[in-house]
């Protein structure tokens, strides 16, 4: 209890907690869950965008998209490394995800149907992710905070790139502009759901706030995102698919009620792509099994050979 108080005092003093520091089991558990979910999201998030690498409409876009998806993989790697500092191995965490026991961001359970979806993911999904992640750069757990700083820098580059894709479409042919509007129509509401359930029903938030893992509420972040996005949509000449949306006296944009039933279904495994995403990750994992085994077998052979040489 004294240790717990001391721990909370460090948090309150905005000190960073490091891997070897004492921490409450619940803090460790919460962070492991959050960081690994975040890592899983990066990895599963490679799939919807990866779906368009082979069909990107110009070489410049193809290179940029491949590099972007590669960055996401890199984020996954930092984040698994951050989670590992809390005592769970990457393998363990990945197995939970493949078994359907660990979550990843629901947004990746929606399909990418046209090229405009690639622009929209960059613009809105990465935009929402940044909104969520910037506060995490000041998270109380050191390795997570440092990973987030690096991630956020790259994400904001991706976000600008996505916006630029949208801009090109909106300045293009009528069909391109319609493609952009269609993508916005399909992604808008799922993106708003990325910030999580409304504050009045959100779990985890109280302790997360106390521990300075979470610094803003879901609804606060969602509002910030909407306020930042509306002028961008206007600039693009696109219509946000919410006829009831209006600006209130404070300048904030009030959005209509979100269909939380859809969110619940997607979370429960019933989104349009949940099956496909898990199947793709499982297939990569299973198909790669013999490769990982070979690498381990070879490393072991080498170890034995050098032990033998050392003994001679």
């Amino acid at each position, binding site marked *: 209890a004294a240790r717990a108080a001391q721990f909370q005092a460090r948090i309150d003093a905005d000190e960073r907690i490091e891997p070897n520091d004492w921490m409450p089991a619940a803090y460790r558990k919460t962070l492991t869950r959050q960081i690994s979910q975040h890592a899983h999201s990066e990895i599963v998030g490679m799939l919807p965008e*990866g779906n368009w690498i082979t069909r990107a409409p110009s070489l410049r876009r193809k290179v940029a998209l491949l590099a972007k998806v590669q960055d996401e993989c890199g984020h996954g790697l930092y984040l698994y490394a951050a989670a590992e500092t809390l005592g769970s191995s990457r393998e363990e965490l990945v197995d939970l995800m493949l078994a359907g026991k660990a979550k990843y961001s629901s947004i990746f359970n929606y399909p990418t149907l046209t090229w405009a979806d690639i622009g929209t993911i960059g613009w809105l999904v990465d935009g929402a992710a940044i909104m969520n992640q910037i506060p995490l750069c000041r998270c109380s757990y050191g390795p997570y905070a440092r990973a987030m700083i690096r991630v956020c820098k790259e994400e904001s580059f991706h976000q600008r790139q996505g916006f630029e894709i949208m801009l090109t479409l909106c300045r293009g042919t009528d069909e391109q502009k319609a493609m952009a509007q269609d993508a916005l129509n399909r992604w808008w509401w799922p993106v708003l759901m990325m910030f999580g359930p409304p504050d009045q029903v959100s779990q985890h938030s109280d302790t997360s706030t106390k521990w300075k893992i979470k610094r803003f509420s879901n609804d606060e972040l969602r509002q910030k995102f909407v306020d930042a996005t509306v002028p961008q949509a206007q600039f693009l000449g696109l219509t946000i698919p919410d006829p009831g949306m209006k600006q209130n006296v404070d300048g904030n944009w009030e959005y209509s009620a979100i269909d939380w039933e859809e969110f619940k279904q997607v979370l429960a495994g019933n989104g349009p792509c949940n099956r496909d995403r898990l199947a793709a990750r499982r297939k990569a994992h299973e198909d790669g099994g013999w490769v990982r085994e070979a690498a381990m077998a070879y490393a072991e052979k080498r170890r034995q050979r050098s032990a033998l040489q050392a003994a001679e």
Partner: protein
Amino acid sequence: MTVANITVSETPLVLYTLRRADDALISGHRLSEWCGHAPMLEEDMALANMGLDLLGQARELHSYAAKVEGRGNDEDKFAYLRDVRQYRNLLLLEQPNGDFARTMVRQFFYATFADLYWRAMMRSTDATLAAIAAKSEKESAYHVRHCSEWIVRLGDGTEESHRRTQGAIDELWAFTGEMFAVDDSERGLIDAGIAIDPAPLRSQWLKTITGVVDEATLALPKNDWMQQGGRSGRHSEHLGHLLSELQSMQRTFPGATW
């Protein structure tokens, strides 16, 4: 009636550059197909890295071919608006990824060649090609290292990885001869010092390959018959399927800007 495919004025230098550009593009595209599906995240990173290097080379080479040709074509027109018979890449590089061993063997054969080739091309009397060569050589040196390490691990790993890797070597071997072939259109460029003769590179290539394959406890096939055709657009059936995917957007929306 719109004309579907661009016409290319294949002067020797345009053709020569296009051939290398197509090698880089098709190879980079194949590697990009792995993205999100590799056996481990580190390999997702590495395969994407190699793919990005190659796609970068493709862009520079296609742009240079367009400049030399001087008919208003550009990197995207070359990539997206030529049909299978106009593509000039090595047959080796259009072969499907197959399993990880197949991909690694394909890239190992090619990167080992490319590294020697680009090193020699750094002495090209064509300043642009020499500059591209200098950059590409550095990149391919890394590709050789990465692929060689995997060949050794897979060959000397488990029984299954050995079997798969040996199978990949046996299947792909017949496509390696084309890397060292020269046709009439290239002779003049070689004489002018713009291109280099790849034939003399073969002994060094074979030495490197043999070294790695030996260390991996694998063996090279005895069969010395070699398949050719890619340089003159006689491809395998695989390339058409690759192109129908690669080109789908540009074909669907002709003339749009992305």
